[in-house]
């Protein structure tokens, strides 16, 4: 796999950091790929802007930053407005369709994923919206094997929350398949 750059962006508290770490962990520890994950926050201790960047590559990674993401996962309007311009030409955008209003971008595929709503509806916990959208990303991009990803989630989320996380993840995959089917 060639160098792939993924950016998660939204508010603090949406669990985007965990989603990124999960990808990096799965890539390096389970898949013998190379990965690097970085992050940045606003000055608020809670809420506020939050960004998590992941680079995955078969080759060793020299530069760990994400400048022009191949995949942009976006869960707030603020993040969208600020960061959409960075997305690489032909990049993929996954956005929470209840939180983000997109603008027309001819060369970019923008995929609406009602992640927060789905999380609430399917397992009753807003907090697993991150797993929903991660499911969609994995299903769409195949950056990592979905089963391997699920093993990683099971091993690394807090005890007792494994099932709802996995359910949300699968829900996200489903969601993508539906949307892709439609498109």
């Amino acid at each position, binding site marked *: 796999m060639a160098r792939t750059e993924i950016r998660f962006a939204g508010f603090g508290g949406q669990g985007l950091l965990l989603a990124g*770490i999960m990808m990096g962990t799965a890539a390096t520890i389970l898949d013998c790929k*190379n990965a690097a994950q970085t992050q940045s*926050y606003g000055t608020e201790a809670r809420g506020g802007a939050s960004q998590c960047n992941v680079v995955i590559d078969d080759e060793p990674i*020299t530069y*760990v*930053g994400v400048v022009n993401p191949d995949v942009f996962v976006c869960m707030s309007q603020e993040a969208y407005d600020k960061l959409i311009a960075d997305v690489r030409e032909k990049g993929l955008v996954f956005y929470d369709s209840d939180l983000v209003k997109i603008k027309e971008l001819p060369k970019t595929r923008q995929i609406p994923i009602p992640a927060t709503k789905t999380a609430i509806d399917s397992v009753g916990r807003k907090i697993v919206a991150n797993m929903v959208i991660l499911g969609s990303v994995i299903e769409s991009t195949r950056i990592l094997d979905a089963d391997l990803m699920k093993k990683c989630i099971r091993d690394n989320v807090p005890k007792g929350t494994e099932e709802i996380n996995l359910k949300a993840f699968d829900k996200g995959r489903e969601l993508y398949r539906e949307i892709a089917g439609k498109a």
Partner: protein
Amino acid sequence: MLKQECSINKYFVQGDEAIAEGAIAAGCRYFAGYPITPASEISETIARRFPEVGGVAIQLEDELASIHSVGGASVAGMKAMTVSSGPGISLKLEGLGWGIKNELPYVVVDVQRAGPSNGVATRVGQGDLYTVKYGSAGGNNSIIAISPMNVQEAFDLTIDCFNLSEIFRTPVFLLTDETVGHTRELLVIPDARELKIVPRRKPTVPPSEFLMYPLNTPGTIDYPYPNIGEGYGICVSPYTHTAKGYATTSEKDHDKMATHLVRKVTDHLDRLTRVQEEMLDDAEYGIIAYGCEARPAMEAMKKARAEGIKVGFLRPIIIWPFPDEPIYRMACKVKKILVPELNRDGQLSREVQRAAKGRAEVYHLGSGGVETHQPVHVYDELMRIIKGK
């Protein structure tokens, strides 16, 4: 730390966590800190891990207390460490002088952030190059500093810090930065038996024959440090000392001490020169960078090489003592050297300029910090200086 799979020694963790694990692997069993972004994760990891391995980890009232207590712990026979960033590093400098003068082995981690003052506390900077070496007033020091550029090095070089601190009986800095500290990457922790760990050397002669400080043979390293409570009558103080550790104000004694402190480093540059060199053989241009800036710099070099431009790269790994020799060699070879770094005053570039002795033109590519340079910025600047614009 997230659980590992496959190998029980593989982890996807932050540089800060790797530093904590490196310290444990090196035998560090005393830690005192005061929270500060972006170094707090080191303290937090250590707070969790030390009790498991029988170490003491404590948060003290401030940075002054932390470093002085680390000095105390070192005297008491512990391998010890403290960590900080920005203003917290400034606050540790007074205590550091006590460590330097008394030849105490311990490690200080500086996770650099964007300054001056609190600056942008959560984001990267590289403004402390001289601070760690010269910040503690009085000169005549023997500080060693090592700078990792990735998570694995954060672990490995932390161990080296402890080892060098024991060999040279001096505080050693791990001079890292927020980018390395907060980036998560794969960390492989080797089996303990594979690691080379330098233990605290203990005197083999009886107390009556032992001198605390090898001032009669300036430059001596690998010199033992006795345990307290064993009759060696350890003498440690802020005052210029004789070989026995007694306070003295004589010019001769003071010069003896100063000379030893300086020479124990300068006499052993062979053991203290460590750089990464890439594609220097045929290079016409060079890039020199350290820590987080090394990675975009190397990426820029790759890009230039891909276009047939003969660019080489050098990275100081042990950054103090400064690798004058390899840089001079490089300067004799290339025409121009670009030095990207995360400050606007030009710190690494000044040192490179000094070491180059006029043999190559040295260019500073600065930035206030917050983000590292992007590879393209380094590449563009390289092109600009090559074209002589």
